[in-house]
């Protein structure tokens, strides 16, 4: 193995290795001849010399090597054309592991690197760093996943897992053969942020950004700041007043010279990219408060557009049919506006002696049971805040009017937050009566037979009857007459369809804005420079909303820490020598300005050629597929690289069993 370094560094494998080495002698010879031939072919064809690839295989402290025969893998891939070094290490991600990479690059002149270890989501960046430290372009690096998609997924098939590792590494080496060095895309950065939505999320994000010295434009489409909290009274779990929290935040943003607050305003156009968004805002900034437009360039956008409560259909649980069927926001308003000295609970002319709270109205909807929205979708998700809201309100009601009987109808109770489960305990102690039913057998809300809606207040029975098959009494069917029904409505995203369209924001199946990754990148969306804060993303309580808003602000501030914004180099690029200017690619691009035909001079003639604006291209590759000349490629993910990967996978390699065979790696 003249130019191959194997440091398997693990004792106890000698017997096996000796056999392998003996049998491999002939194989190697054959392989060397082949390599020589290929080198000659390359020279004849004017192709640059074969790259020098270093392959590093991680044991992951046994996580990989307990299943995959890593030494065997190192040995076999060491024979793949181009591979100069193949090594095994117990923890590639450790300092010594990373050091080996940068050292080998410097000492052995490697110009490509492969690490086979865990999922790329964990350490791809780590190893790109190690490659950079060896003064090699970090994009001449390939990551092979032999743990999550290797040893862990094929535990009972060690031979298969070993063979798969060899094939995947061979594929990666193939991909690297066609790799090109890439540079991060650098663009000027406008240190100004646009926050859309002036609820608590928007205000918190604005305040945090301003505290970091960043100029903020806070746009709110209603006439006041505070969002939904303006309609709440005491809030769980702190039992403080929503108004106090809003006032506190309003003070922070109002008295801040770094924050421009635009009320009754909306963002009507967004163009551009991270560091350089060109936006148009419409609002009463004209003379005498007349409507006018402003063009504002910002570097980052925070979406804090919040939610709207679910509005039940007419007749859903008698909503809008009985005057005492209300939603939770309406109920909270009603309690807020009541005379504090009132001895009895009265609403719309009815004395309320019993109240039923219903959970999951407009949330956790089931196919075939619930009626879909007009657009055909079901709100299958949990709105997360309704359970605590209901129990919080139920406890308060029992305390305020002990004579009012309170019933709670739920499928499940999810008081997940800190200090929220206590409301459940409290409610039980306060005498709230719980009923639990199966979602497949929904409860019925009907007028009590014989009761007229305008019945006098002297009646005994409530005019509304709820019938439920109660799981807490082993399926007994129970009919509960009540005076008032409170529908615990869920959350739906605000109507921001126009912004979703103009900023090209990704939304989930639930129509809320969707983050890049729920755990690793929770406040970013796939559009660079756009962040999400609060309930525009998903149902959240106040604490979660403020956490998310703080995170989004800090994330935006971090983007502003640099003079220039750096973008991932995975964008489309045009090979001018192949482009014929037919423009099929342009028809495939949904991102305005990302890909255009421009006039260019070629050999003294004016012709049309495709041109990519790297700042606007998102790297989807839709344009690549249609180019008849393969002039269009996605940097870092070229078609010839994907083809080389298939070739690598299909290359016949020695089988991983103990009897190595002679095969042609060509």
């Amino acid at each position, binding site marked *: 193995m003249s130019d191959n370094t194997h440091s398997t560094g693990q004792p106890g494998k000698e017997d096996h290795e000796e056999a392998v080495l003996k049998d491999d002698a002939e194989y190697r010879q054959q392989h060397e001849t082949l390599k020589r031939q290929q080198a000659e072919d390359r020279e004849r064809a004017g192709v640059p010399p074969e790259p020098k690839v270093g392959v590093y295989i991680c044991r992951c402290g046994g996580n990989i090597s307990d299943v995959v025969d890593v030494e065997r893998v190192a040995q076999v891939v060491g024979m793949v054309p181009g591979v100069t070094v193949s090594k095994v290490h117990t923890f590639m991600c450790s300092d010594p592991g990373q050091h080996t990479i940068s050292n080998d690059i410097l000492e052995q002149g490697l110009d490509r690197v492969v690490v086979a270890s865990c999922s790329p989501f964990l350490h791809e960046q780590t190893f790109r760093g190690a490659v950079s430290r060896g003064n090699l372009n970090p994009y001449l690096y390939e990551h092979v996943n032999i*743990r999550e998609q290797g040893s862990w997924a094929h535990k009972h098939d060690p031979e298969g897992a070993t063979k798969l590792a060899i094939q995947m590494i061979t594929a990666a080496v193939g991909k690297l053969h066609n790799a090109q060095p890439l540079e991060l895309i650098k663009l000027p950065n406008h240190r100004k942020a646009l926050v859309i939505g002036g609820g608590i999320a928007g205000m918190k994000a604005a305040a945090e950004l301003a505290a970091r010295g960043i100029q903020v434009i806070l746009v709110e489409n209603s006439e006041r700041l505070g969002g939904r909290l303006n309609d709440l009274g005491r809030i769980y779990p702190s039992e403080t007043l929503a108004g106090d929290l809003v006032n506190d935040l309003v003070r922070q943003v109002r008295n801040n010279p770094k924050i421009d607050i635009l009320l009754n305003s909306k963002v009507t156009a967004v163009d551009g990219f991270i560091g350089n968004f060109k936006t148009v805002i419409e609002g009463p900034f004209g003379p005498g408060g007349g409507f006018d437009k402003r063009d504002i360039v910002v570097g980052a956008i925070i979406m804090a557009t919040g939610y709207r409560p679910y509005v039940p259909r007419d007749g859903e649980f008698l909503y809008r049919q009985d005057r005492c069927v209300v939603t939770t926001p309406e109920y909270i308003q009603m309690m807020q506006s009541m005379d504090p000295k009132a001895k009895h609970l009265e609403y719309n002319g009815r004395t309320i002696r019993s109240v039923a709270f219903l959970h999951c109205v407009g949330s956790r909807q089931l196919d075939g049971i619930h009626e879909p929205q007009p657009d055909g979708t079901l709100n299958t998700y949990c709105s997360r805040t309704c359970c605590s809201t209901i129990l919080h309100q139920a406890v308060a009601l029992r305390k305020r009017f002990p004579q009012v009987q309170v019933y709670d109808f739920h499928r499940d109770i999810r008081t997940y937050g800190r200090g929220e489960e206590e409301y459940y305990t409290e409610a039980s102690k306060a005498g709230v009566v719980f009923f639990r039913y199966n979602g497949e057998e929904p409860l019925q809300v009907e007028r009590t037979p014989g009761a007229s809606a305008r019945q006098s207040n002297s009646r005994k029975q409530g005019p509304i009857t709820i019938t439920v098959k109660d799981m807490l009494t082993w399926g007994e069917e129970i009919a509960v007459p009540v005076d008032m029904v409170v529908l615990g409505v869920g959350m739906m995203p605000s109507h921001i369809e126009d912004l979703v369209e103009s900023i090209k924001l990704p939304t989930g*199946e639930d129509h809320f804005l969707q983050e890049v990754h729920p755990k690793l990148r929770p406040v970013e969306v796939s559009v660079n420079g756009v962040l999400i804060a609060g309930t525009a993303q998903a149902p959240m309580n106040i604490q979660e909303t403020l956490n998310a808003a703080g995170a989004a602000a800090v994330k935006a501030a971090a983007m502003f820490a640099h003079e220039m914004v750096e973008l991932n180099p995975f964008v489309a690029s045009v090979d001018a020598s192949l482009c*014929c200017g037919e423009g*099929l690619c342009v028809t495939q691009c949904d991102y305005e300005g990302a890909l255009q035909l421009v006039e260019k001079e070629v050999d003294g003639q004016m012709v049309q050629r495709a041109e990519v604006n790297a700042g606007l291209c998102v790297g*989807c590759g*839709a344009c690549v597929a*249609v180019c008849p000349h393969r002039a269009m490629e996605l940097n870092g993910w070229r078609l010839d690289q994907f083809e080389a990967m298939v070739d690598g996978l299909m290359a016949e390699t020695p089988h991983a069993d103990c009897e190595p065979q002679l095969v042609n790696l060509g």
Partner: protein
Amino acid sequence: MADGFTPKILVLATEKCAYPGADAVGKAHLEYPSEVFILRVLSPVLFPEDYYLRAYSKGIDGIIIASCGSDCPYHGAYERLAKRIDDLTIHMKDGGLEIERMRLTAICTVCIKAFLKEIAEMEENLIKLGPVDRALAEKLRQESRQRLEFSGRYGLTGNAATAERVAL
């Protein structure tokens, strides 16, 4: 069909959804055959028809495009992808290559069961079908390249190019 045939399956898994979904399977220590090759892609909308046909011609027996479906982070990409795969299956069908070898699906980051189900179903289909006809795939690949080149000349995409050529 050859005895002991183990189908080779190529999974093109999106970085945002299906690839982490496949990771989740391993993290749960659930298993699937080791002749399933998972390649990470930003969006499979990148691939021209001939890419898939070339893979078959190299001996890949079945391809699963594990996309993000309606959760695709790129505007319009999923719709374009779906259209392309529709066109591809038409060409496969016309050319006599079994369309069961191609599957477009969506796998989310936690869709462990869906991932395993897709693999199992493809595996089952391929065992019934046997190894791919590589020569046929190569012939279809060449036709597909021609179609693409033709589309360039006449500024057409997809099936329109085929229709137009027939009309000419």
